[in-house]
């Protein structure tokens, strides 16, 4: 069966979102575009398994995510570093006026484990419901909720926007130690 013109144009219009999600996952623009390309090819091949009327974007995100994790497995997680080296590199100070810098935010996001990062992106940025995110990630809704919650807490710690700590080396050291200083 031929791929319909409508399907092609739907794919086209999904590309900006797919790229944003791919960058969020892989933290690398080149890899992200390769992921999107792979996703489009797969979507094209499997278009008959897509049920018109259901959420195309969620379907595409699922393909992209699966592709990402399968590539990561193949590469043996060469670059991922959830807690190690980058932690040292990352010394985020909130800017002087308490305004959170986007660059700092990006660096903080990069530090999250993938499962938390994808959860908070899907819910907080891509506009999916918890139900949809759970389907995309093939897990329970409660799992997504707890990942989002942990991601948020972690980001707050890294960026020190809990409102309780002063700026400075000491409080940063405390964060790096992972203490949940009350």
């Amino acid at each position: 069966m031929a791929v319909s013109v409508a399907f092609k144009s739907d794919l086209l219009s999904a590309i900006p979102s797919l790229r944003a999600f791919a960058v969020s996952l892989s933290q690398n623009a080149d890899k992200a575009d390769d992921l999107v390309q792979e996703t489009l090819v797969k979507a094209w091949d499997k278009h008959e398994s897509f049920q018109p009327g259901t959420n195309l974007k969620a379907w595409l995100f699922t393909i992209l995510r699966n592709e990402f994790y399968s590539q990561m497995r193949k590469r043996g997680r060469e670059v991922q570093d959830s807690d190690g080296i980058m932690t040292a590199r990352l010394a985020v100070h909130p800017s002087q006026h308490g305004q959170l810098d986007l660059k700092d935010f990006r660096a903080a996001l990069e530090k999250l484990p993938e499962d938390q990062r994808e959860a908070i992106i899907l819910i907080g940025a891509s506009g999916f419901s918890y139900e949809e995110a759970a389907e995309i990630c093939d897990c329970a809704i409660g799992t997504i909720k707890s990942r989002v919650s942990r991601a948020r807490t972690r980001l707050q710690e890294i960026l020190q926007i809990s409102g309780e700590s002063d700026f400075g080396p000491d409080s940063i050291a405390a964060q790096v130690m992972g203490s949940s200083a009350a």
Partner: protein
Amino acid sequence: MNKKDDQVSGATQQRTSTADPLGTNSEIARKLKQYYDELVADEVPDRFADLLSQLEKAEPARKKD
């Protein structure tokens, strides 16, 4: 489905119950949006439209229905 323990990390923020783990109005939520919207707004390289056209051409003669 999920153990209560999973939610403990959120215990310090009572107002963000499980109903809204993200805290829609939080600074984090706003930055997240900003971060993502910037990515979405990035100009799409031609290679993707080209790819789709190629896929279309490569299809076996399409049947009319």
